[in-house]
């Protein structure tokens, strides 16, 4: 479903990702862990075209995201091409990023009507269904500012799902929540993971969630994958000394 091939990303002199290769199978849940600044979030941002690669290619669902064919040559993708490929990718952000000038309903029907061309009725029905799924059916006409952080993040999840994405990117989605709200959001994501076949790429510091939720965990350090294993293996008997060190630090803190 997702192929990173020799991806390099620099911010000025700072090399964030170098020669990164990995693939994610359809329906797979992959969690990216690692110290901050290790490039995990950059991977999600590259997939969402919020950043562009300096070298290498990214392919999603058989279509190249970073490049396109023009006159028989591969050239960097333009806005239109990347928007087309990206339609199948949804993202949930750490800071929710709901549109405060719209109601919950407005947030949910905006992209389905404008981008997918759904009718208002279809989009409304979909919004209602998704809000029920995230347990906020009665908040459909509220403004986001009147919701708690946990509720806002649930709406953001519903908003991403309203596009029926093949790939869902979760960027530290519980990091900005009050501790008592984290479990509910994680439970919701777990249920979504169980009940759909969406490919999910997740950056999180919640190791318990990573262990239960993922099929695979990738440990990042210095812009590269230093360990890639099922959670049962990676969390209980990691191979790489940096992984051990990182897990120890994270678990001690928790």
């Amino acid at each position: 479903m997702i192929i990173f091939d020799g991806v390099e990303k620099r911010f000025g002199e700072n090399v964030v990702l170098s020669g990164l290769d990995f693939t994610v199978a359809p329906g797979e849940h992959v969690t990216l862990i690692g110290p901050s600044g290790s490039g995990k979030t950059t991977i999600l941002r590259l997939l969402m075209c919020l950043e562009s690669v300096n070298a290498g290619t990214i392919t999603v669902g058989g279509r190249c995201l970073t490049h396109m064919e023009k006159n028989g040559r591969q050239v960097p993708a333009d806005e239109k091409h990347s928007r087309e490929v990206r339609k199948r990718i949804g993202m949930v952000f750490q800071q929710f990023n709901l549109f405060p000038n719209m109601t919950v309903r407005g947030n949910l029907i905006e992209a389905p009507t404008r981008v997918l061309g759904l009718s208002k009725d279809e989009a409304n029905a979909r919004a209602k269904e998704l809000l029920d799924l995230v347990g906020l059916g009665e908040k459909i006409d509220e403004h986001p500012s009147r919701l708690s952080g946990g509720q806002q993040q649930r709406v953001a999840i519903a908003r991403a799902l309203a596009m029926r994405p093949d790939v869902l990117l979760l960027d530290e989605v519980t990091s900005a929540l009050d501790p008592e709200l984290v479990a509910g959001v994680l439970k919701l994501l777990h249920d979504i993971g169980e009940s759909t076949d969406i490919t999910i790429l997740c950056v999180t510091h919640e190791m318990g969630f990573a262990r239960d939720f993922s099929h695979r965990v990738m440990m990042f350090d210095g812009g590269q994958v230093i360990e890639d294993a099922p959670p049962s293996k990676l969390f209980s008997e990691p191979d790489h000394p940096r992984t051990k060190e990182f897990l120890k630090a994270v678990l001690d803190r928790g």
Partner: protein
Amino acid sequence: MGWNWSFAADVFPILLQGLVVTLQLTVLGSLAAFSLGLVLALLLRGPRPVAVVVRGFIEFVRSTPLLVQVFFLFYVLPDIGILIPAYWTGVIALGLHYATYTADVYRAGIDAVPRGQWEAATALSLPRSRVWTGVVLPQAIPRVLPALGNYVISMFKETPLLIAIGILDIVGQAREEGGRFFSYDEPYTIAGLLFLALSYPASLLVRRLERRVGTV
């Protein structure tokens, strides 16, 4: 000389006629300044060469007096065949001049929209035009309404400048009437009081708006 109440009562309706012209000029000038300012603000975010040219234009207009711009439009443009009636010259001059200020007001409002909003809109694949009209501007504009309001008030107070090209706004009428009866006390005093009667409540309104929306 001294104050003559009956003369004051006579000129009052004439001054009100002038006030209508002043208000028309302010409203039309504001509409021009609001829309042109928005265009300039968007161009400032465009490709670098465009932004540089627009910034140059803005600085040029701001660094020259409004009166010189009015004279330029009214007396110089006809030399190259562009003849604009005085009234519309006034509207264009006010709109153009103030657009260079509202442009930066909009810019500040747009900059204050969090990056996450752009990113969420991108993540939903919204087309660029919709990101502006559906997400960014509806958040940016309410925040800058007080600042725009302040420019409307100062434009209102600057319209009398247009008597220089013969527009009979409130001050123009006051000068005419005063000149006719060789008594300027009443017309200018009333004109001043009328400005005060409108500007002061308007500025209170803007201040209330500021408290409501916060400032950028």
